[in-house]
């Protein structure tokens, strides 16, 4: 197993004349929960897309679990779980079926899959709704199911792109608990979020990204101390001169 779960060196992604990610350097260790913070268009989702093999970098190297994102995509797809920003799911399948489908994609044994899905559904408080068609779900329920679709196969690396947006506080807390548990099991997690409270609560380290550049990195407490701020939000404002778009 590689020393770092994620290794990014001088990562640059350009779309024509627009540079979405500009020379990003980052390392995430196994068992670490890393938060990527930044305003809309900062390059968070582009970074996640590169790590999840959806996008090829223009320059630089990115490795997930020791595998190169441009050369060993199949190996990476075996070990990652991706929760996209916009939850995509099959509306005519039930919540349970959606989650099981992603377990099947990873060729999980039937019995293990069933037990795992039962346990996951219970943990996020969806027992009463798991057998309803997903099209009938509220936005928060869909987000919860979408998170489980990403994590059902117990991935070594979880890439969670704003997984708790539009969730009610109770659902958000249950997802937080779940993410924490993943970390304790030695998984590496990259979490992008607009919620400073979420980053402070969950992340071992955070990186603040603006206009494609990583402008600060450290533990939430170190960053607050370094910038003499009470909250991460204040650190963010001092560094970028901007407020995050959404409030908690």
């Amino acid at each position, binding site marked *: 197993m590689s020393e770092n779960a994620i290794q990014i060196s001088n990562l640059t992604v350009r779309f024509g004349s627009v540079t979405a990610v500009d020379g990003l350097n980052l390392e995430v260790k196994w068992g670490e929960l890393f938060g990527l913070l930044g305003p809309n268009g900062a390059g968070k989702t582009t970074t996640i897309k590169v790590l*999840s*093999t*959806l996008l090829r970098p223009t320059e630089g190297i990115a490795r997930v679990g020791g595998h190169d994102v441009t050369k060993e995509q*199949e190996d990476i*797809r*075996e070990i*990652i779980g*991706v929760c*996209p920003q*916009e939850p*995509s*799911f*099959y509306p*005519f*399948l039930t919540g349970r*079926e959606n989650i099981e*489908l*992603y377990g*099947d*994609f*990873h*060729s999980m044994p039937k019995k293990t899959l069933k037990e795992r899905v039962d346990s996951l559904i219970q943990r996020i408080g969806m027992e009463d709704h798991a057998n309803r*068609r997903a099209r009938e779900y509220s936005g928060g329920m869909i987000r919860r199911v979408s998170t489980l*679709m990403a994590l059902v196969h117990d991935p070594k690396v979880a890439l969670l792109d704003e997984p708790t947006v539009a969730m009610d506080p109770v659902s958000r807390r249950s997802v937080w608990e779940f993410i924490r548990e993943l970390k304790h099991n030695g998984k590496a997690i990259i979490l992008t979020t607009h919620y400073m409270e979420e980053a402070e609560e969950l992340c071992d380290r955070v990186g603040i990204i603006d206009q494609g550049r990583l402008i600060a990195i450290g533990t939430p407490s170190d960053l607050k101390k370094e910038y003499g701020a009470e909250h991460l939000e204040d650190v963010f404002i001092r560094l970028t001169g901007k407020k995050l778009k959404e409030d908690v």
Partner: protein
Amino acid sequence: MRMTRLIALIKKDLKHTVREPAMLFQILLFPLLVTVVFGLAFGAMDSGSTTTFSIGVVNMDSGSEHPEWAGYFVGNLTSLNGTVVSSYDSNATGQVDLLNGNLHALVVLPAGFGASCNSYWLAPLDGNSWTNTTVELYVDSGSMIAGSAVPPMIQQVLLRTLYGETVASLDLPLTIGRPASVAASTFTAWDYMAPGMYAFASIFLVMTVAQTMTVERDTGLIKRMSTTPVTASEFILSKTASNMVLALGQVIIVFGASYAIGYRPETDITGMAFAFVIALVFALTCVGFGLITAVLSKSAEVATGLSFVFIMPMMFFGTFMQFGGLTQSIGAFMPSNYLTHALTTLFLRGASVTTLSLWTDLLVVAVVSILVLAAGVILFGKQIRK
């Protein structure tokens, strides 16, 4: 390639069809509905069952010297099987009923009708001495069957009026032998249409495939799937397989519904097996066109409209709608035409599966299917890998 993933993807697609009312209608209920409605509507045509024609007669010769001839005409017309005769005082009142669809035809016996008939019998061999008159016949232009059936009936009644019953039993030195294909005379219009219905039902797979592919692409499902071990080949193969299952369902539905309303193809179990095989091979063409449509479409709505670019020509030039001339030539380029031709050979002509033309049709359909499907898979695969 993992079977677990393939089966999971196929099951997912089949659940979609069963659970999505619009999809269920499009894939399964639409062919059922079309088969039953067309079968019932066209099943009675040309079936040898009694078809009654309402014929109106305006007699303008009632006050003439020889009114009996008009009487003979009306009598002969009334005695003809399948006619209901009613009298009208004037052409105008008859025309009103004809226009309103209450009559299939209107016959106007002119003043001098009796004198004309009489003049023939006074000098049967001297045409110069005959008094010529014209019987006017108006046929309901809204009825295709009346337009073709009524004029010969009136001709027959006129001959019988002039020559009497003997006209039907004249001895001739020549006779027409009963052709072996005389059984065709018992076929209904539906029998001629049914082979084309199999192709017709499958053709709409183009739209279904295009819609489901674009929806999965546009809602980010394919992108999300691309972050899992599922490969592009597994995804496309699962789509092809699930649509083949649906195509099989469609063929069973069309056959079952046709059978239920009395359709009996002139073939045996091997012929039926051949029919199923060629119909399924043709379904691959539709899946291929569906993939191509999805690649060209920016959304599911666009895919719906664009799919008709493939559906319409195959439908009009290669299914149950039989035209001649230029359309027949265009039909030579439609794979559906070869499916319809093969099924017609089996179901109507009663040919055995060893008939060469059947295998030629299968070969054409198979080659086209492979080419179209390959093009669709390559184009769509390229798009999702992007």
